[in-house]
């Protein structure tokens, strides 16, 4: 037997592969590769002050009225899943991106890319669901577009929605405003949407059906703004999950964020599914949760306001903004040790929303 010392000389490692020459699936993961696309391709070409804030929505001023604008595309598979479908998701996602800027959502557009052969009744169900979600959220879908691509060139149905809302005077929420000492609030349990989708897609069955948390959050936001204006920023942790969202905030505000592991709400069934599949729920997508960074003195009042709302009943303070480790999210474990909560490098779950 050759000794291991001898074989060390044979050892080696490959050179790095630059991820620059082609678009990879990971560029849509909401993690680091997505951020690179924005930084290297989109911002240099399109830069302007509203875009450069890199928030979930742009806030622009028209005749003294501050408008929030946002757009989002939905490519979820399967189209129908426990707790929602691509139609309701397309409404909730865009309403939420407006709400995270403190805006009152008013109008949506809806653009459909349909694949040849899509059963018409599926399209009908999706559109009915969009109507229902929009009516419940108090927004109107006022314009739209339809394109059809050849069989095999789409995945049944893609939807893009764009939303417009008005931002109340004095409300300025942005991911670059977190300050040391601020508290991190989370409106409820993590990972429900991503695991519901995955379970449906992979045919996994659990004792109880895990439902997507897909919901419109603007009334929760409105209730919070009534209680305090000491909110620095809000984000809905969709693809990439809570960890990616907090990493973005930490980087944009150049602060550290320290989480307390035991305070993060997590449903037992979602936790079980994550354990079984080897996933970290902090990286799993949510579609009806928000993260708020708020001044410490306002945290308790805001937490109570959240808990009074149906969509914030399980809200919790999950961490604190720190001066140390700017740009990094860390976590105090139950063992009293500290670890990094990194941004997703590639896809944990491909194409979740």
């Amino acid at each position, binding site marked *: 037997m050759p000794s291991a010392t001898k074989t060390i000389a044979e050892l080696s490692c490959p050179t790095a592969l630059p*991820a620059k020459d082609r678009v990879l699936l*990971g560029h849509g993961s909401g993690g680091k590769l997505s951020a690179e696309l924005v930084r290297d391709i989109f911002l240099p070409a399109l830069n302007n002050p509203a875009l450069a804030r890199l928030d979930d929505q742009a806030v622009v001023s028209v005749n003294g009225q501050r408008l929030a604008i946002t757009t989002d595309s939905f490519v979820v598979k399967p189209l129908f899943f426990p707790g929602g479908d691509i139609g309701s998701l397309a409404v909730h996602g865009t309403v939420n991106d407006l709400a995270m800027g403190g805006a009152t959502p008013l109008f949506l557009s809806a653009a459909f890319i349909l694949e040849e052969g899509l059963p018409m009744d599926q399209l009908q169900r999706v559109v009915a669901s969009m109507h229902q979600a929009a009516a419940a959220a108090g927004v109107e879908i006022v314009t739209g577009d339809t394109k059809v691509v050849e069989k095999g060139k789409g995945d049944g149905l893609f939807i893009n929605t764009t939303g417009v809302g008005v931002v109340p005077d004095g409300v300025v929420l942005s991911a670059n405003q977190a300050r040391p000492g601020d508290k991190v609030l989370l409106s409820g349990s993590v990972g429900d949407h991503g695991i519901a989708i995955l379970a449906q897609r992979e045919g996994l069955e659990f004792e109880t059906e895990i439902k997507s948390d897909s919901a419109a959050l603007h009334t929760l936001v409105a209730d919070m703004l009534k209680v305090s204006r000491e909110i620095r920023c809000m984000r809905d942790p969709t693809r990439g999950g809570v960890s990616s969202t907090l990493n973005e905030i930490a980087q944009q505000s150049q602060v550290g964020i320290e989480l307390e592991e035991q305070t993060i709400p997590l449903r037992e069934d979602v936790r079980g599914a994550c354990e079984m599949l080897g996933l970290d729920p902090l990286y799993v997508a949510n579609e009806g949760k928000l993260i708020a960074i708020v001044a410490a003195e306002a945290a308790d009042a805001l937490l109570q306001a959240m808990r009074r709302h149906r969509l914030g009943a399980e809200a919790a303070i999950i961490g604190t903004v720190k001066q140390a*480790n700017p740009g990094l999210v860390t976590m105090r474990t139950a063992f009293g040790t500290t670890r990094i909560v990194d941004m997703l490098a590639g896809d944990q779950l491909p194409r979740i929303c």
Partner: protein
Amino acid sequence: MKYLDEYRDERIARALAQKIAAATTQPWVLMEICGGQTHTIMRYGIDELLPQGLELVHGPGCPVCVTPLETIDKAIDLALRPDVILVSYGDMLRVPGSSSDLFRARSQGADVRIAYSPTEAVKIASANPGRKVVFLAIGFETTAPANAMAAWQAKRQGLTNFSMLVSHVLVPPAIRALLVSESNRVQGFIAPGHVCTVMGCSEYEDLVRDFRVPIVVGGFEPVDLLEAVLMLVQQLESGQSKLENQYVRSVSYPGNLPAQQIMQEVFEVADQKWRGIGKIPKSGLRLREKYAAFDADQVFELGELMVEEPAECISAEVLQGLKKPTDCPVFGMRCTPDNPLGAPMVSSEGACAAYYRYRRHAVAS
């Protein structure tokens, strides 16, 4: 959650850490073999709970990390053929070969699919008679039974369009190779509980006897690992070397006999190259002659591929427990999970990736 919460209980963990500290009178170097165990140690900061001088080094038990570059290159070559559907465990898609990876192959039009179970690949083959389906069958003794089952099913169904690109590695020969090395520092091993769940414990008796080294079969939760460390320290401090089983809730002495049978039916032991370690005699599995029709190497006449790897990173030393990931000059700088220079940075079970994900702030400060 039952069978989980009690093994992550902070009070039990602290009590064990105190017992370990009380039992330790001198420095010891222990190695956990499995990448899953490394991941837990980093995630929960288990090493921070241990007394000074009690060092945990990380073993070669990450299947993604030790899969040879040649295998990845062959998989990419196959995947790029228009008539091939390549099916793989998800983690393999980001592993760099000599000039590309499977994700990039996919962006160039290759049909690469992720499966949670190898038998899904058999189903894909059955549903696509006009295509050739190749399953990238990698891993330790843990994935071997399921991979063997895929070949067995394909044979029974008479499929002619299914094959496997096999790169299987075995734990005991790797431990033996580490122990005969002149540079070995490891004085006690935490053996991989899931491998032993399949294979049982007897192979490790031989190692204990031949090298007088204590081995404890360990689980994957924080309390499991601390308990295994305590058992090793108690043996070392009292001059003992024996095989003990900490992971009794999963591992029986004989192991999973039906799983071993299907492995025996389909695979035979062969020499195997390990990325980061080199060729180790009788440390791998290959398909038996009667399954040659399902051997992608033979079906596609891939032949011997020799790939020269530039000696850039220190994964060799890391995978043998000679160095820590943080000893590497390019760790976290030019080598990150987005841009891995070496395999241990690719998989979440790789030691370098585990350090990067959970520990780089400590390095920075």
